[in-house]
């Protein structure tokens, strides 16, 4: 059954036991909404130079959108921004693959638990759910960087 691939144990696990959930101190906060289905996320990032110190969030939505935020937290916190952005690109590629990319070992190395979302990429309406937190994170990061620069040059 195709559904099995979408509702991977991994995803359900992250949904039930989200990692890093809750709002903590940050350099920038964003609120993103998926207008077609109402999934919401409020997300903060805290940077130290180019290092991601924390990504904290609160949200409401389906198993996919909530699990994806938890996986995001796993994959980027503690990383250099540059590396995290690479992970994000690979995840985006996978999600936009329309079910045609079969994750190989190299991809699994990069994406870890996030490869479980491969099955989601077949369902365009759900891809947005999976990407919601990642888009929010990118947005918050650029705001944090802009704030940082503003402060430095002020």
């Amino acid at each position, binding site marked *: 059954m195709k*559904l099995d691939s979408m*509702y991977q144990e991994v995803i359900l696990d992250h949904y039930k036991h989200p990692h890093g959930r809750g709002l903590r101190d940050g350099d920038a906060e964003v609120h993103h909404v998926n207008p077609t*289905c*109402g*999934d*919401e996320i409020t997300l903060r990032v805290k940077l130290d130079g180019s290092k991601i110190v924390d990504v904290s969030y609160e949200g*409401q939505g*389906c198993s*996919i959108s909530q699990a994806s935020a938890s996986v995001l937290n796993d994959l980027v916190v503690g990383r250099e921004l540059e590396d995290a952005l690479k992970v994000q690109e690979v995840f985006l590629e996978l999600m936009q693959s329309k079910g045609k990319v079969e994750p190989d070992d190299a991809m699994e190395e990069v994406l870890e638990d996030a490869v479980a979302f491969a099955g989601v990429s077949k369902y365009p309406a759900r891809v947005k759910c999976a990407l919601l937190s990642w888009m929010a994170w990118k947005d918050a990061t650029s705001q944090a960087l802009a704030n940082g620069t503003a402060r430095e040059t002020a």
Partner: protein
Amino acid sequence: MTPLHGLLDTEAIRKDFPILDRVVHDGKKIVYLDNAATSQKPRQVLDALNAYYERHNANVHRGVHVLAEEATALYEGARDKVAAFINAPSRDEVIFTKNASESLNLVANMLGWADEPYRVDRETEIVITEMEHHSNIVPWQLLSQRTGAKLKWFGLTDDGRLDLSDIEQVITEKTKIVSFTLVSNIMGTINPVDAIVRRAQDVGALVLIDASQAAPHMPLDVQALGADFVAFTGHKMCGPTGIGVLWGRQELLEDLPPFLGGGEMIETVSMHSSTYAPAPHKFEAGTPPIAQAVGLGAAVDYLSAIGMDKIEAHEHAITEYAVKRLLEVPDLRIIGPMTAEDRGAAISFVLGDIHPHDVGQVLDEQGIAVRVGHHCARPVCLRYGIPADHAGVVLSVLHPRGGRRPRRGAGARTELFRLSWAQRVRADW
């Protein structure tokens, strides 16, 4: 199981809908329960579209050649059909728009630019309800922001009805327009038109009825409704996309100012000023949705041939049945009326704490198409304490899906949650 009475011959009707032969997900024939969002189109409507484009296509009201005359006759003929379908006193009261949203915005805009006594401004009030579709909320919010008029609304009771207990405070001497839906697209509630129209007339307010969810499901008689304007949309009533209707009382259409300006809606134009053609053309700027009007005319013929009273009876029977069976599903909560009384065939529910997206996806795998999310009526979700993203699932039947659908639909669903989702996910959590 108890036999249902007053059903249509849905096996015969099914055959008119080519899309119902569509097979999805490894061989499952589609079960389409998403009619509140849009209906499917019978062969008869598609044939009318093709005949129009293949034999008669031309711009209307403009040429003296054969095609132009034929296209004009077909387009205006569709207006006659729609006028008869809603029992309009005059065909000239039927305005073609692109969808119900445009019809509703058209009224809001006319009133914003109107002279007295219609003019909506900072001294006046607008009344809607908490169960409106976004298309009957946002135009009034915009009008209120732009004119300074106060926007008020009726709240809802716990069982999904309008709370009219404070009607005298809500609709007052200051009210210029009361706009509400005849049937809720999310809860299926049928609203008490008479009480609202009576109060509006007492204070001299205009009444606009959003009949988008009523037109496909029951006889619609604009004279019996007693409203000043009635709006609905073609694609939900077996017609094409890209066509809507606004019916309005003739005197009002004469008095009120135009909305969009352009070709077709003018009488004479100079660079300095223009005069406008009489209604309905005054409100139909530019090349109208010609083929779509012709298609809507065919849809109206199709529905009338079945009989709107029979469709209503059929839907009532299966709604009654479906509500009963759904309530047997463990942890299922219906949002809206729990009986078939004064309710249409849209049924909204939440299932425990399972997110509706997840429910929708599981149903889709079975070939069952339902709506999930806020259904373009987010305030309703907020009202019932359901997070906006958790608004539930609507299954809405239109006659061709009826008869066997609730049985199989509800059955499939129950089973599905029991066997697959519930076992897999809920038992486990």
